[in-house]
Each structure stands twice: as structure tokens, then as C-alpha cells.
């Protein structure tokens, strides 16, 4: 049905190289009015590069760029915005300390003839604007107090309000709970009716298939398939993405998975009655050696605060922690590290040094074991090389600045830095977020290997698939409290969602 709508944007033969490496090779891409266009591909397949070209962030590329039938060339993001093309990134760019209304009107507040901001008019119009899109929220609320899903909808509203008719959404559903995804999809449906065009990039192929009209698949900088969403399937898309039959990797987890019986291995970490402000209420659990404990809950259920308490970053108001039976009070993350706890946060920016070489990123957490006072760079490189080999980090050059690596490989570096001297307890926050199928599988294998070496592992995630593919035992958090523990029983995505 979308085929008969007029093309808004046509790209022909787009090629883009970074330092001799071709990130995109001769891409043709058409976006029609009132179309939701899904984009899938592994990390580094070229999706983001193409979107950055469309959004004006990369100006130097080869090929034809036709907007509304006229050949165009954007020199900057500003040019693209002026032409009505806007991108909403995975990491939102909202101002958490401003109100909803201020965020909607960011950069274009209504002013009276003396140049004073018309606050009341702004709040009223923001409220109307949001309500029109089916978003019901008090425009005077502080942005940072709202759940992430709502913040995202408000950011989309702002972008639309500034006149965007082509909207590029990068991984919009990865941080959302199922009801929030529903809300997002109904908003996108409305925008499609208005005749706006949307590019939807996601690793969640189910989401892509549900919401898109057309799906394009990228692999290694090439467009390998384009199909109407109604006429294709998940298996076909995955095959196109990866190139071989990998369906078993992306099990749907709809059927039951049998968790192993309760472990009688020694307890490594015992958390008792932890409470933090409004985000954690009387949380108790234990993590055992050689076992992966999954902590599952929707975004904002308190799981991130819980992880931070375990690593000494956040002090609990009440409750205590014991590591291998000894009571611990972690004043600093350094104390937690010395007690044998390793922590991989959910964002790469929070764990890696992009301007430093790979080997320094890997050695940072174990430097006190390698060097008393004077550094031993050759030893650091040696250790880093071993980790790069073990985790198959590419390119395998430990002197390369971390920023030159792809996202998935950076994530592996974030894990590698804890493994040279294995900790007693490894806490992984969202270990597979934003990863492609192959990289996810690598993480599963790494975690299983670590488990077999006797580490206690805690996986904290808002993605049921992540928890289901990794955990031996699952604790479900809801509004800061433990509501359910799955142990030695059958579990499925449905049951997890139901519990949370």
C-alpha cells in the first residue's frame, strides 16, 4: 500500500568511507510520505552512517541525495532540521531540570513583544500539543521526574513541533516497558496518518515487523534486502542480516525454559533489607558462586540503583551487604572492587575512556596488581592482548584508541577489564543492550564460561530475553521491591512480564 505514496526522500548510490574503510557502498534508499520504514542490521552494518547522512551529520559522501524531487546537499544538522529532517537518538537529549513545557518549546519559547517568555501560553500550548498526540502529562512537571518512556514521547513531540516531517528514531524501544512501547507505536501510527515519514532503527525485529510498512536490511555497508513488512518474517530478516541460518540464536523465549534446581554452592554476596529513598524497598537476595542471578524489572523499577548499591556507588539508607559471609560497608567503588566485586554499567560512556588506548582501558581496574608504584606498560599490553584474544575483540590492536572500535567491541573491552584477575562477583547491567545477534551470543558464551569458572554473576536487565538467555535464577523487581523469585521451575517471557 505504501508503494503508491509519493517519495519524499530518494538516495542513489550513496557511498561513504572512513579513512579508507567503506562504511556504505552504493546504497539506494527511498522513503515515502506516510511511511514507517524499518531498518535492521548488525552493529557496524551501516545503518547509523546512512541515517547520519540523511540527518546532515556527515556532509562528505558520494551519491545523489534527492529531497522532494530536488537534488540537495546538507552541510550540517541545522540544514537538515531546516528541511524538516530530525533524528531522535537512543540516548535522549532532554533537559531533565526543565519542565515538560520548556522541553517541548526548547529553543522556541513564545515571547511577548518585550521579549519576555509567555509562560502561561507556553504551558497551555505544550499541553494541547501533547494531548493532540495522545500524551497526557502535566506540562509543568519536571522532565527528569518522568519515566524514560514518557520523556522520549515528549522529545519526539518537541521534534515534531519544530517542524520535522521526516523523523529518524534510533533504537526507540530498547529502554521502554511493554506499555510504553504500545504508547510509542500508537503515536507513530498517528504520525503516519498525518503523512509524516519515519525511519525506525532497531535490533528488536518483532517491533520492526509490528510497526513498519517497509523493512530494509543492511549488512557490511550494503543494502541486502528490502521487503514489505507484511510479506516477510523474522527468520527471513535475520537470515538476511547475518547471512546464514541463525534462527536458534534468536529464540523467541515464548515457550518455557527450565531453570536449574536451587544451587547449594557457597553464597558470595548476601544483600539484606536494602532500602534507598523511593527507589528500593527492603530488597534481600543472595548471589552464589557458579550461578548467574538475573534481576529483571521494567525501566525505573530500581534495578540500576540496586546495582549501584552493590558496587559502593550509592549508600543504602538501610540494610546491609555481606561478601563471603563478612559484613561490608562500601564507602567507595574502590572498596567494593577490593572486596572482589566487578561492575559493568549499562552505558559505555560510564565505563570506558574513549581517548585512551585499548590496553589502558583494560588494565585500569587491575593496575594495582600489575604495578606497585611504577607502571609496567609492557605487562599491561600483554594482559590486554590476552583479553583481546579471549574475547575476540576486533581489531586486535591494544594501542588503538578505544574510540576507534565499534560499539560492540567497546562493550567487550568494558567486560575485559575485569577478567584478568577474575572477581568473586561480576555485576552486569544491560550486558546486551543495543547489540546485534552475533555479539549477544558472544556475551552469552562469555558469561557461561565465567560461570563455569566459579564466579558469581548478577545480570541486571530490563530485557526479558537477556535475563532468560543468561540467568539460572531470576529475581523480579517491581517498584523497588522483590515481587517474585523464579528458581528451579519453568519460566518464559510471558511469565516474567506477568510478574513484573
Amino acid at each position: 500500500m505504501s508503494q503508491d505514496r509519493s517519495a519524499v526522500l530518494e538516495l542513489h548510490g550513496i557511498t561513504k568511507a572512513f579513512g579508507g574503510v567503506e562504511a556504505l557502498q552504493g546504497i539506494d534508499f527511498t522513503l515515502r510520505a506516510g511511511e514507517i520504514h524499518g531498518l535492521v542490521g548488525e552493529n557496524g552494518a551501516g545503518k547509523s552512517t546512512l541515517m547520519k547522512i540523511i540527518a546532515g551529520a556527515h556532509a562528505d559522501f558520494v551519491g545523489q541525495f534527492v529531497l522532494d524531487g530536488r537534488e540537495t546537499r546538507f552541510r550540517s544538522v541545522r540544514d537538515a532540521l531546516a528541511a524538516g529532517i530530525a533524528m531522535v537518538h537512543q540516548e535522549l537529549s532532554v533537559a531533565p531540570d526543565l519542565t515538560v513545557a520548556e522541553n517541548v518549546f526548547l529553543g522556541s519559547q513564545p515571547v511577548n513583544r518585550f521579549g519576555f517568555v509567555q509562560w502561561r501560553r507556553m504551558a497551555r500550548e505544550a499541553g494541547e500539543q501533547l494531548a493532540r498526540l495522545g500524551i497526557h502529562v502535566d506540562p509543568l512537571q519536571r522532565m527528569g521526574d518522568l519515566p524514560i518512556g514518557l520523556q522520549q514521547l515528549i522529545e519526539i513531540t518537541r521534534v515534531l513541533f519544530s517542524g520535522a516531517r521526516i523523523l529518524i528514531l534510533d533504537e526507540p524501544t530498547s529502554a521502554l516497558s511493554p506499555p510504553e512501547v504500545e504508547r510509542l507505536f500508537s503515536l507513530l501510527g498517528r504520525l503516519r496518518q498525518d503523512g509524516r515519514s519515519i525511519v525506525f532503527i532497531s535490533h528488536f525485529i518483532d517491533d520492526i515487523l509490528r510497526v513498519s510498512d517497509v523493512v530494509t536490511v543492511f549488512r557490511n555497508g550494503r543494502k541486502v534486502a528490502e521487503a514489505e513488512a507484511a510479506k516477510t518474517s523474522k527468520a527471513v530478516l535475520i537470515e538476511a542480516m547475518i547471512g546464514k541460518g541463525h534462527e536458534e540464536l534468536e529464540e523467541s523465549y515464548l515457550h518455557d525454559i527450565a531453570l536449574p534446581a536451587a544451587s547449594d554452592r557457597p553464597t558470595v554476596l548476601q544483600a539484606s533489607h536494602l532500602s534507598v529513598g523511593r527507589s528500593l524497598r527492603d530488597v534481600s537476595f543472595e548471589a552464589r558462586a557458579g550461578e548467574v542471578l538475573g534481576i529483571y524489572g521494567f525501566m525505573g523499577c530500581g534495578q540500576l540503583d540496586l546495582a549501584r548499591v552493590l558496587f559502593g556507588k550509592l549508600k543504602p539508607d538501610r540494610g546491609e551487604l555481606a561478601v563471603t559471609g563478612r559484613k561490608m560497608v562500601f564507602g567507595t567503588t574502590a572498596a567494593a572492587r577490593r572486596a572482589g566485586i566487578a561492575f559493568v554499567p549499562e552505558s559505555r560512556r560510564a565505563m570506558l575512556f574513549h581517548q585512551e588506548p585499548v590496553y589502558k582501558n583494560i588494565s585500569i581496574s587491575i593496575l594495582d596488581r600489575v604495578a606497585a608504584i611504577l607502571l609496567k606498560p609492557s605487562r599491561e599490553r600483554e594482559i590486554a592482548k590476552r583479553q583481546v584474544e579471549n574475547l575476540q575483540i576486533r581489531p586486535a590492536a591494544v594501542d588503538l584508541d578505544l574510540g576507534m572500535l565499534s560499539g560492540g567491541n567497546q562493550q567487550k573491552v568494558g567486560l575485559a577489564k575485569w577478567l584478568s584477575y577474575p572477581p568473586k562477583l561480576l555485576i552486569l547491567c544491560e550486558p546486551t543492550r543495543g547489540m546485534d545477534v552475533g555479539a549477544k551470543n558472544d556475551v552469552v558464551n562469555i558469561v557461561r564460561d565465567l560461570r563455569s569458572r566459579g564466579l558469581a554473576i548478577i545480570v541486571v536487565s530490563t530485557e526479558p530475553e537477556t535475563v532468560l538467555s543468561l540467568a539460572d535464577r531470576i529475581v523480579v523487581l517491581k517498584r523497588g521491591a522483590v515481587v517474585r523469585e523464579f528458581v528451579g521451575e519453568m519460566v518464559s517471557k510471558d511469565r516474567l512480564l506477568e510478574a513484573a
Partner: protein
Amino acid sequence: MTGLVTDEPPKPSRRIGALLRAQMRNIAPFLTLIFLTGFFAAASPSFATLDNVGNILTQVSVTGIIAVGLTFVILCAEIDLSIASVANVTGIAVAYFTLQDSYVNIANIAMPGWAAILLALGLCALLGLVNALGLTVIGIPSFIMTLAMMQIAAGVSALLVRGQIAYKIPDLVATLGSSSIGGIPWIVIVAATMLLAGHVVLTYTRFGRYVYMVGGNREAAEYSGLNVKLILGSAMVISAVCAGIGGMLGVAHFGSAQQNEFDTYLLDSIAAVVVGGTSLFGGRGGIGNTIVGLFVLGVLNNGLDHVNIDSFLKILIRGLILLAALVINVYAQKLRASTAK
């Protein structure tokens, strides 16, 4: 000089342009230094003489000593505005604990030289510790914390000297600050030694690595299990102690200890570090950069004297040079961020 602080490029085959852009913060100050030296050498016959090189070295020594510690602080992406005041109060303290001639009307406490030196060092370390605690335990931004300390240290100075001028200082300090060995002033040797020590600590020790990592990404440093507060606090104490040593030798160099003696050293020290190319956002740069920055300032100050320029214009020119350095500093950060994202 810049070789001390460069990171090896990943592959020699990488484009030269990208490399130059990444290294801009090291290259630009060095080119500035060469340009200024060439300019003054051409403009004045008395500039490029061996004697004058000695002058420049002596003139930048006190700034150099103070700038060593400040380099640590700026690499951590913090700032220390109290260095000049701490230098001043330490210089005054060492005189306060030394027997003064009877015409100096200060109710001081005379002590043996070694005790005076230790007490003075203890004082500056203590002031640095207060900065450190304010920054890390209470969480006052270093800009404000050290602004308060600037005033506190000036207040202690005022109370100690009460508008008087003291002249006598321990022999060791007098020797290091104002005499020479084999034609080389001791103060130059001390400055060179401290700069070298600072470089060794920053480049070859675990603590130095931590300073760069904390400056490069504080959040990641914390999630890597580093004691970020301890590292920041240490940098503040190192800064205060370096300032104190600079203050004691400065007093010997000037020949007297009095209020407001070091006021120009705050701007000079910050300028030396920043002009040299150490990033104001932390994590990039080092002592090598600071040395280049010191020479840029030293050559500029000294050269302007040789070309007989209006002394009031000198102040403006220094301000403009600092502004240019800031522009390059911020620009270099952006360039780097765009090459290695």
C-alpha cells in the same frame, strides 16, 4: 619537549592530517614558542644571548615550581585558584619562624631553620588538605573552594606580617632561592628537578595514570573501582605543596617576605599550564606541555622588555596571548573529539 606527552599514533599509515589534528594541542604551543623566539631574536640584538637565556630560565623558575602542582589539578579537570596565596603565606611563614633583625617589627617565633621549613611545608600541605576536603567530602566545586582558600591564605599572611616586611629566612631556603652553583642558579635547578619529578610521577607511576584517567572520564574511573576522591584530593595537596615550595624560594629570590608579593603568579601559573596545551577539560597534556607554556610566557615577558614596549601594553598583550591559548585549547579538544569519537 612535546615528545614527553605525545601518545603514539595507532598506525604510522594513518593520515597525517588526522594525526596533526589530534596532536594540535601539543604542536600549537610549540610553534608559538618558536615564532616568539624568532620574532624577538630578530627584533632585538640583546635577546638571543646566553646571558638572557639564563635570565629567562630564572624568571620562569618560581612559576614553574608552582605550575608543577597545578598541572596535576588541571589534568583532573579541576582548578586551584589559591596557589598564589598559598605560595605567599608559605613564604611568609618560613620567615615568621626565623629570627628577624630587631628593626623588623613582627612578633614572630624564631626556630631552627629546618623546623621553620618543616612548619612552612606543613602549613601549605594543611591548606591543600582543606581544599581537598572541601572538594571531595563536602562537594564544593574546586573553583569556589579554592577562591575561598585564596582569601583565607591571604588573611593568614596578613595576620603574620601585619603590613611589615621580613627579610631573614633559613639558610637552606636562601641558598636555593638566590645563589648559584657553577653559574647555574639553584632556583633553576630546583624548578627543573621538580618539573622532572612531576613528569615522572604523571607518566611512569600508577598514581599518574589515575590522574589522567580521572581527568579523562571521572564516571568511568569511578565505575572502574578507582578511589576518585582520593586522587582528586591528592592532586589538591600536591598543588598546595608545590605552591608552598615556590613561595619559599620566591621569598629568597625576591629578598623579602611581604603581603601580596605573589599576586601575578596565579595568572602566570594557570597561563603556563593552559598555554602549554594541557586540556582544561582534563585528561590530556602534561608537564611537557607546561614546560613549553612556561617558555612561551617567559620569552614573551622577557622579550617585551627587550623591544622597549610600553609596559602598560605588556599587560594587555599577555591577556591576549592567554585568550588565544584558551581558544586553541578548547578547539583542540573539539578536533580530537571529532577524530576519535
